[in-house]
């Protein structure tokens, strides 16, 4: 498996090989590019949606980042009542913090404890808690992660540098239907004096997918 962030998105259908986004169009559009354009133009032509609605939705999607999820986690660490509400209904608790859900997905928040380590995956495609984390990383969308996370999660976690003892249950959640997941990592030791803001800085994207634990060192890594 490729290390995180170096995975190339082999799913995309352009049929060429590049490691970074292109800055301009080159070559012929692929099959799915043409299909997307055709469907979009038909929807606009039939006045079912307007071009501005598409633009606004893209703007909305692009505005979401893991910083939102980090705020949710940090609040749960400092506020036990909020934590309880978050675990009971993830979506409602996020909405409490002003994070809107623009689709009809529910959110289950999975709490890591001394007995359970949660890992999330979508074996079907790339279902991801976008309202709270933004767009998924490339490796999350690629087949090696998607197939191996459900069949050999401990080996996958080890490749991320995460070793889970055998007496801790690994619980993999496969989000293929209407529900999205967010991992609530364990609060790192030695952070008793941290402010909510300092705690949020320790909560990276990968900790909320469950591939690494939150740690004081994680917080220092560039996000």
């Amino acid at each position, binding site marked *: 498996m490729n290390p995180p962030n170096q995975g190339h998105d082999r799913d995309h259908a352009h049929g060429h090989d590049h490691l970074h986004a292109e800055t301009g169009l080159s070559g012929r559009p692929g099959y799915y590019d043409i299909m997307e354009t055709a469907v979009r133009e038909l929807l606009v032509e039939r006045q079912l949606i307007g071009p501005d609605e598409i633009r606004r939705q893209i703007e909305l999607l692009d505005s979401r980042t893991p910083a939102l999820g980090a705020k949710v986690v940090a609040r749960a660490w400092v506020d036990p009542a909020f934590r309880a509400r978050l675990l009971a209904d993830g979506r409602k608790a996020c909405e409490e913090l002003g994070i809107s859900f623009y689709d009809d997905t529910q959110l289950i928040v999975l709490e890591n404890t001394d007995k359970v380590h949660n890992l999330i995956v979508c074996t079907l495609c790339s279902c991801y808690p976008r309202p709270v984390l933004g767009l998924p990383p490339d490796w999350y969308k690629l087949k090696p992660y998607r197939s191996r996370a459900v069949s050999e*999660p*401990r080996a996958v976690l080890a490749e991320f540098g995460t070793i889970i003892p*055998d007496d801790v249950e*690994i619980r993999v959640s496969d989000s*293929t239907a209407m*529900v999205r997941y967010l991992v609530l990592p364990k609060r790192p030791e030695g952070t008793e004096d941290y402010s909510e803001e300092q705690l949020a800085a320790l909560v990276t994207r990968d900790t909320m997918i469950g591939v690494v634990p939150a740690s004081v060192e994680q917080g220092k890594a560039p996000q």
Partner: protein
Amino acid sequence: MKNSTRETTGPLHGLVFAPGEELLFHPGDPIRISSRFPVGHYRVPLYLRGKAGIVEAVIEPAAIDNEEEGYGRNAGTRRHYYRIAFPMTEIWPDYAGSLRDGLRIEVYETWLERR
């Protein structure tokens, strides 16, 4: 079909559910995922067909049946998704991790069988 479960415990008495919205399964029920293989795109992963699990939770609210809706065969009726728990060893007989390890997934009611 039991029809008293939610009438007696819910806040409203005498509530009548739309067809399909009444729960067929409850947390703790042992189930098996159907081993049907219809042609087309289905969200129930192949690796779980025929596998035995336990209902862990009911996902509210009831949701549209995408598999019917996608073919224009559903008039907006709804059923529930259930969060199902499987031991990894049930899914992968030669699973190499801890015996405690497990998997969770939401599965639509039409794919669940009693066992």
